[in-house]
């Protein structure tokens, strides 16, 4: 299975950081997912082989971490925080807004495969609530209007 050169370089280096190979597993899974889109059977098989693990062990780990997924998501994963600090400042309404706007529910993906929506737990933006992460980018102090702008920008990004 083929990963990018950057992935391979990071992976090779990371293995030198730990006394056991499997220690590199969690961050490696996330980077692999970022490249492939999801942790497919092929990725699992490959990483299990590289880290001297059984596929079962890799699956056990994947299913534990909420950012990891074996099912493909949209290109942009819109993660709306509704935890307490965001809830107090309209996080839930923002989620509802996104649901309407994108036409999908929690963990849904738009038909064009562009957006996925996810209600997430605290993302560490409490003082700038309500906040949303699109993939790894933070968008904070949001309103419905600002949210629309954010989504539009991602749409535009794709067209470029």
């Amino acid at each position: 299975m083929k990963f990018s050169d950057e992935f391979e370089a990071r992976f090779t280096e990371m293995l030198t950081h730990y006394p056991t190979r499997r220690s590199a597993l969690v961050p490696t899974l996330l980077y692999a997912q970022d490249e492939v889109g999801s942790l497919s059977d092929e990725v699992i098989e490959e990483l299990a082989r590289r880290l001297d693990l059984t596929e079962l062990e890799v699956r056990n780990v994947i299913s534990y971490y909420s950012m990891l997924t074996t099912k493909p998501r949209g290109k942009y994963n819109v993660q709306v925080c509704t935890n307490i600090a965001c809830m107090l400042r309209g996080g839930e309404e923002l989620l509802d807004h996104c649901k309407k706007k994108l036409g999908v529910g929690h963990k849904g993906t738009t038909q064009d495969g562009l957006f996925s929506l996810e209600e997430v737990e605290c993302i560490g933006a409490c003082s700038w609530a309500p906040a949303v992460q699109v993939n790894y980018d933070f968008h904070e102090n949001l309103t419905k209007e600002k949210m629309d702008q954010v989504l539009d920008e991602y749409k535009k990004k794709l067209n470029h």
Partner: protein
Amino acid sequence: MASLVSHPDEVRVISKRFGQGATNIDRYLELDGYKAVQKALAMQPDAIINEVKNSGLRGRGGAGFSTGMKWSFVPKQSAKPKYVLCNGDESEPGTCKDRLIFEHDPHTVIEGAMIAALAVGSHTAYIYIRGEYRYLSVIMQKAIKDAYAKGFLGKNIFGSGYDLDIYWHGGAGAYEVGEESALMESLEGKRGIPRIRPPFPAIVGLWGGPTVINNAETLAAVPHIILGGADWYAKLGTPKNGGTRLFCLSGNLNKPGVYELPMGYNLQKMIYEVGGGIPNGRSLKAVVPGGSSTPVLLPEEIDVPMDFDSLAKAGTMLGSGGVVVLDDTICIVKFALRTIKFYQHESCGWCIPCREGTDWLKKTLTRFHAGAGLKKDIDNIYYLAENMLGKTFCPLGDAAAMPTMAFVKKFRKEFEDHLEGKPCPFEKAGAAEPVMA
């Protein structure tokens, strides 16, 4: 990326380089960077530990254990390698301080970890950053690289003959991994299930070696203590609660933000002066003083110094410094539900009381808030929480139980108002759209 705020009462120690471009190693050096570790290199390990002990620095992750004491538990001699592990898996709702440290001053964390390593005789440290903070991982990885390039890390650091490696490590979404033994499991490439203690990490930690685990903010304070001296640092706070800390003000406030205030700063002042008070002419209903796991305080309970011991006396905890403010439009049942929904989602599932308890609390509170509550539910909610408290495998169960018990105890009337098929009184009252700041 996260915006900065300021207030005249702030005492800037940890945050003094925020907004100063200190991610650049040369700029960091200009701002007294890497001086503390060079000073520490000239000190005996015991002297470093004593300095930190005397500073009154206590763990900023939530438990508030004396950092110097923690270091002193690491055996001097060990057949297995010793490790320092920086806990940057910041996930406690209401907390967003480590994010600022990593974003603005990553080298302080590196330097703090280096000093910790010198103090306990470790030659390898890891800085674990939660998976969601990808941009901070990028910053941190660069900072580490720069430090290596300068010869501050690696073989023979600062020409001292001491070898020290520091590596970055990333999570992938799990609150539980913030628990120190689960953090080690995660770093070892496993599910974040906590370990049985004893043995404690200081004796048997990462890969079986003695391990010191400190919160990122804790480590960020260490270089300042070494440079400024224990006395100076201790005196910034209250007795046994040395220094300052980053308070994350959030919720229904005019000026939410992360402020660095001395330990023992009055909570009332923090809300009304630093945080600018409650917006839209509403009044204060409750405060969660130290992250979602700390028991809620009523308006009449907030005239209290924000330090570990004073809050313990007030029946709650200073926790991770996340001050979440609720105004009077907020339904406490809904707030309790949202809190428990989090713990239900984040429970690792290892032990019965946490796994089943959080799920039953969530189910019951969901129905209860939806208007189908029974009178006995109120007692059942309390009963469940009470029977989780102190009986779970790790503190996550307590973190779910403590706030729940406080909500029921302090707001029983509001729970009762949800009874007999009544929809949530706050929603019925057509509570205005929540503030979009």
